[in-house]
């Protein structure tokens, strides 16, 4: 007991804990004052401006390009086609972002398209001019003679062996096909009390950070290249520039300035970034390109178009026995990175549930549309939509409570960590590491008064109002490895710096890392400078994706800060002639506990800087600094459970969100205020996916939602006040016990909202199987319910009658088969 009280006293003497506090963000004062420095705010002398010539055709052969009129305009410095830009590059075609043997050759985009454009928006020439105005004037004068080719817009049509080819170089439109399976699915279905079939789909949308993409490239007189880019992956951009420009890495520095949001679309090296650097090389002048919104709609990546034909087998009590079916994923015209989205979808369908048998056949189909890579959620929201809609279906068919059906199938807390018979793409077992899913469900349903809802609903119906309550679970693999870099350095001036390959794009990662560092060094978060996304400060980095940076960079910074702390104590013990065990850090000094004897961290740093010719203190290395690349193959699974109340106007189809309650288990929280903010934004993105965001293409691949007046993002008047609860089950897989949070808010939203709409429209038997659902679509469904006399007719299908493939001919014959086991390196 004496030991315990001593510990308590010691804790009381220390400053309030910084990790876990609602610290205000260190990023904010400059941003609030208009002193942020985003890509278009970076000024360099003599800069030229780029505009791209983009294809108006979804598929066409380029017969010829006539740039004479464009070149003749005053202020035009150059017009580069693919042929013109090639001398500045090692090759025209970009390498695959995540190299793998499992995908065929010749699937990536070109820096500028040389012969055959494959989606509306694909860049085939660039104009370099004294101003952006002039560059756009000239781009409009570039004459391109196209031979239009047949295009494919619907990925289900693309699977037809007779369909036109998306790119003439490919043998067919199937990029790859794989199966994720475990257990005895045929046996499970044969013996099941009930089997239900469902076709479900989610549509594609854009990332739409309010700041678009942009890049600025400048060579100095010695041939060194600096590139500023609004990117989520500055190190990858550096490595790809070295490769594509055939330039030594030491001559390249990539800087991500303030990034005005990413949401996935900046986690890719784009053709435009390389084109800008190549143009700077050819023109011997700095070149800048700033994407406008019109370009974002047709050239920044999109995601989420998937079509699922699924069957679920359950016993008489609604326990899942098996899940099987087919997924068609729309990859768009090229594959810049790999197949992480459909792989994530296919391995996360079972979500928080125990599913004894699973078999999913996945077709990754190419279309003449903008390429797909992850947007916030990366395949998980689609899978959550599928399994959660199926859980509602089971409940409805069996006449069971939706909450009860979920409780019967959730992985219970006492079985954590729970290993699924699945592997992540690092090849490691997929393990739900910690959590209490049933408790989270209970807490949220209590908060939203689920038990009292039937009475509220009946009351509303009596006054002609149609309200519904819905809910859904989501799990999201976060903290994806293999590592992130983190260095902590105390300079002899006393400044404390953190350098990391993590990428700050608005999440508050600088503040979180500063808190983690400050906690160990006895300072405040405001005393720590965090430099992120600048390749001059960190040799390695992977950047911002998969809700990973607090886990990976956080762990590296934590370990580095601990190492710096240990070193400071070791040196201070010698300087103060005290025992190491008696020392502690606070106020940027090392104190002998219980005395006023201390030494400043700055003084320790000065000692470790070294004096020419004199010895360092024994037993320590030079410099008060440490670097870590904390490594992981596992994912930290964050869990969300959301419940919402909606009101549907059956005359207009409008859906109003009345209440939204969400619980998030992201393990230990570094800064609850930042985590809440991430959830608000993530949920709102999900609301967009559920009700508003629809990237429309016609059958010829022409996009028709290319302004923010046509493609609707949720505004302040469309979203409710959010009620956020936390459950903290620390991850056992990293030293901080943290899990990611950036995407978790998005994952269950569409499923929860559709569940609530179904509930509100139960009198018409409405069952929503697609996202987004528009007011017009809801009116169609209500009308269909009216016509069919509605209500009842929820007849259960017999297992023998169900069909899985709902559309198009079975395409097996024409496809390349790829064993999923071989995909583990993707």
């Amino acid at each position, binding site marked *: 007991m004496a030991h315990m009280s001593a510990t308590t006293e010691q804790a009381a003497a220390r400053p309030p804990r910084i990790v876990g506090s609602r610290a205000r963000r260190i990023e904010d004062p400059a941003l609030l004052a208009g002193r942020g420095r985003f890509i278009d705010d970076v000024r360099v002398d003599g800069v030229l401006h780029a505009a791209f010539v983009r294809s108006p055709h979804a598929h066409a052969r380029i017969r010829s390009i006539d740039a004479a009129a464009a070149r003749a305009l005053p202020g035009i410095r150059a017009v580069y086609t693919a042929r013109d830009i090639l001398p500045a590059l090692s090759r025209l075609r970009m390498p695959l972002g995540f190299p793998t043997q499992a995908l065929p050759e010749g699937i990536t985009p070109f820096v500028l398209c040389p012969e055959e454009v494959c989606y509306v928006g694909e860049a085939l020439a660039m104009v370099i001019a004294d101003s952006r105005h002039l560059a756009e004037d000239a781009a409009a004068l570039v004459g391109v003679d196209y031979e239009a080719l047949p295009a494919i817009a619907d990925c289900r049509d693309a699977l037809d062996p007779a369909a036109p080819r998306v790119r003439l170089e490919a043998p067919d439109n199937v990029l790859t096909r794989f199966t994720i399976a475990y257990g005895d699915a045929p046996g499970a279905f044969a013996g099941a009390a009930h089997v239900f079939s469902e076709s479900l789909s989610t549509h594609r949308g854009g990332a739409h950070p309010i700041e678009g993409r942009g890049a600025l490239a400048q060579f100095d007189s010695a041939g060194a290249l600096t590139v500023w880019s609004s990117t989520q992956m500055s190190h990858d951009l550096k490595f790809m520039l070295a490769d594509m420009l055939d330039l030594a890495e030491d001559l390249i520095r990539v800087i991500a300035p303030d990034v005005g*949001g990413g949401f996935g679309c900046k986690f890719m090296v784009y053709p435009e970034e390389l084109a800008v650097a190549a143009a700077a090389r050819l023109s011997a002048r700095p070149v800048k390109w700033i994407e406008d*919104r019109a370009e974002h709609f047709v050239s920044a990546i999109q995601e989420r178009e998937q079509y699922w034909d699924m069957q679920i087998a359950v016993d008489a009590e609604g326990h899942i026995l098996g899940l099987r079916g087919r997924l068609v994923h729309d990859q768009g015209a090229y594959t810049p990175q790999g197949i992480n989205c459909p792989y994530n979808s296919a391995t996360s369908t079972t979500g928080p549930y125990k599913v004894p048998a699973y078999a999913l056949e996945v077709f990754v189909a190419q279309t003449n549309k903008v390429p797909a890579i992850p947007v916030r959620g990366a395949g998980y929201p689609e899978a959550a939509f599928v399994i959660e809609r199926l859980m509602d279906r089971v409940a409805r068919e069996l006449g069971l409570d939706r909450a009860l059906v979920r409780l019967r199938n959730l992985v219970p807390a006492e079985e954590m960590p729970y290993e699924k018979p699945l592997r992540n793409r690092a090849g490691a077992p997929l393990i739900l590491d910690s959590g209490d899913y049933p408790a989270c469900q209970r807490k949220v349903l209590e908060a939203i008064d689920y038990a009292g809802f039937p009475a509220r609903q009946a009351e509303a119906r009596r006054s002609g109002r149609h309200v519904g309550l819905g809910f859904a679970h989501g799990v999201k693999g976060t903290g994806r490895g293999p590592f992130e870099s983190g260095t902590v350095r105390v300079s002899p001036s006393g400044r404390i710096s953190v350098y990391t390959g993590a990428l700050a794009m608005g999440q508050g990662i600088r503040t979180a890392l500063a808190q983690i560092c400050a906690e160990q060094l006895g300072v405040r978060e405001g005393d720590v400078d965090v430099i992120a996304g600048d390749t001059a400060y960190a040799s390695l980095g992977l950047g911002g994706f998969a809700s990973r940076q607090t886990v990976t960079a956080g762990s590296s910074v934590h370990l580095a800060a601990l190492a710096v702390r240990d070193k400071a104590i070791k040196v201070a013990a010698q300087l103060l002639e005290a025992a190491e065990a008696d020392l502690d850090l606070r106020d940027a000094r090392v104190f002998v506990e219980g005395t006023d004897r201390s030494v400043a961290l700055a003084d320790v740093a000065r000692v470790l800087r070294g004096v020419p010719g004199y010895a360092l203190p024994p037993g320590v290395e030079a410099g008060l600094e440490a670097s870590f690349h904390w490594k992981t193959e596992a994912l930290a699974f964050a869990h969300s459970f959301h419940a919402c109340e909606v009101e549907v106007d059956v005359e207009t189809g409008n859906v109003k969100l009345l209440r939204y309650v969400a619980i998030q288990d992201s393990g230990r929280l570094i800064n609850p205020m930042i985590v809440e903010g991430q959830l608000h934004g993530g949920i709102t993105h999900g609301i967009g996916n559920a009700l508003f965001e629809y990237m429309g293409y016609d059958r010829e691949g022409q996009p028709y939602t290319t302004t923010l007046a046509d493609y609707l993002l949720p505004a302040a008047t469309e979203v409710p006040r959010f009620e956020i609860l936390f459950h903290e089950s620390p991850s056992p897989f990293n030293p901080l016990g943290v899990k990611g949070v950036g995407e978790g808010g998005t994952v269950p939203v569409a499923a929860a909202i559709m569940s609530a709409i179904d509930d509100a429209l139960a009198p018409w038997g409405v069952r929503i199987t697609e996202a987004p659902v528009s007011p017009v679509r809801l009116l169609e469904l209500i009308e269909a319910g009216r016509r069919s006399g509605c209500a009842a007719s929820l007849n259960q299908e017999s297992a023998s009658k169900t069909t899985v493939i709902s559309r198009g001919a079975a395409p097996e014959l024409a496809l390349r088969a790829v064993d999923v086991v071989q995909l583990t390196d993707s």
Partner: protein
Amino acid sequence: MDTRDINVTVNGVAHARKVESRLNLADFLRHELGLTGTHVGCEHGVCGACTVLVEGYSVRACLMLAAQVDGKQVVSVEGLTPANGLSPLQQAFWDKHGLQCGYCTPGVLISLTELLQTNVSPSEAEVREALSGHLCRCTGYHNIVAAALEAAERLRVGK
């Protein structure tokens, strides 16, 4: 090149400039005057990131030509910011985590400044209505609304 001569006062500083007739106000502020706090998000008048005050009223700087502010007073986010520290509205944004990436924030601050000048105790619905001309992809608006209500409260108490 078709040009116009304009005289405009921006954040209290008078400028006499020759501008291209087609130059919009956002590009004028950013690239001619170096006031890069005003951001451009869509260039078609939907996202609201470029909102500034002209003669005290909020306008989309991407939908207005520089030539149209001849003889007028313009205030951008730089003009909302005291020489030292932050305004009560900016301070409330910091305290309430009303921003994430910060790209839409300057325009949002401008619209809320306009709101709070005319309505000292706005309701949540009124704040949301004032924000409806702004798109934010990061915050879900929750903490923007909270910050606006907090700022209104502080301004009332301050008076």
